[in-house]
């Protein structure tokens, strides 16, 4: 999980910077990281706040972005079932793209549930602490980072590092093409609603691709 932890640091800085430049107070900017604890949701919320979007649009966009946690939660659930509910509730709070990507293979491959859960818990806790420190760094240092560095580009790079490895089969390729074409074609929609619509379009295309693929086999 170490490459994920170090890789998250610049992303956390960008989240701190984005929250401040969207008009959030330093305390609120830190609270976003403490409570929301999701880079994607925080960046989108900050961009929409800066654009003056109404609360309902911000909440809806963050909700759609959070749908991927449902998938991660469902994938982890069978492995966590034997654990005490207090541990499950704590593990769930630490569930992120990075913690999931780093630990799901371990849960699947290892018969030792306690060891895998400990790995998830330890890695997730380190990620959470580093995320707070990175956000704090962004809040404090945001104004001294030269804009020419284009630090905000680490956000798409971070998501790209999660996205590219998913491309292992044809239906996923079709999902990506549909979402990519959709998000560009719908770019004129206000308040980044294109992101939600393109995401749903990609999911629909994936379901259709699965069906057609099954029929062909």
């Amino acid at each position: 999980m170490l490459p994920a932890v170090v890789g998250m640091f610049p992303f956390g800085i960008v989240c701190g910077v984005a929250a401040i430049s969207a008009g959030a107070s330093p305390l609120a900017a830190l609270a976003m990281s403490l409570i929301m604890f999701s880079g994607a949701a925080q960046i989108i919320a900050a961009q929409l706040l800066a654009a003056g979007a109404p609360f309902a649009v911000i909440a809806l966009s963050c909700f759609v972005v959070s749908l991927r946690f449902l998938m991660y939660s469902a994938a982890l659930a069978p492995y966590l079932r034997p654990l005490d509910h207090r541990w499950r509730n704590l593990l769930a709070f630490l569930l992120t793209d990075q913690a999931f990507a780093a630990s799901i293979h371990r849960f699947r491959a290892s018969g030792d549930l306690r060891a895998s859960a400990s790995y998830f818990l330890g890695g997730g806790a380190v990620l959470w602490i580093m995320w707070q420190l990175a956000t704090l760094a962004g809040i404090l240092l945001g104004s001294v980072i030269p804009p020419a560095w284009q630090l905000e580009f680490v956000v798409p790079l971070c998501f790209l590092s999660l996205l590219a490895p998913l491309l292992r089969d044809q239906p996923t390729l079709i999902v990506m093409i549909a979402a990519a074409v959709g998000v560009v074609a719908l770019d004129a929609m206000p308040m980044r609603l294109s992101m939600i619509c393109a995401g749903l379009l990609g999911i629909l295309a994936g379901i259709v691709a699965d069906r057609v693929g099954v029929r062909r086999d």
Partner: protein
Amino acid sequence: MTKSQIVWLVIVVVGVINYAARLSFIAFFARREMPPLLAEALKHVPAAMLTSIVVPAVVFAAPGHIDFGLANPKFIAAVVAGVVAWHWRNTLLTIGVGMAVLWLVQYLVG
């Protein structure tokens, strides 16, 4: 509502949404079978959502202006970083290569 009130409302509401989504199948629906169509849809959620977040951030050289050439170093950097991510599955390496290519192309075209 003032800006500050909206910010705090977003923090609390989205915080609850995020935690509820994370807990969903781990806690709330732990004893239920997932409907097959939902399982099929959920499987595609990460690829679909991550694509619709990444693509607009890398294909537009300026708002509303798509560019796949040297005038858009972000696209070139994203293609190289995407190949690195696909092959090595390493966040730190992906970010390092992506930023290096971005700066290099900007310097060369500059």
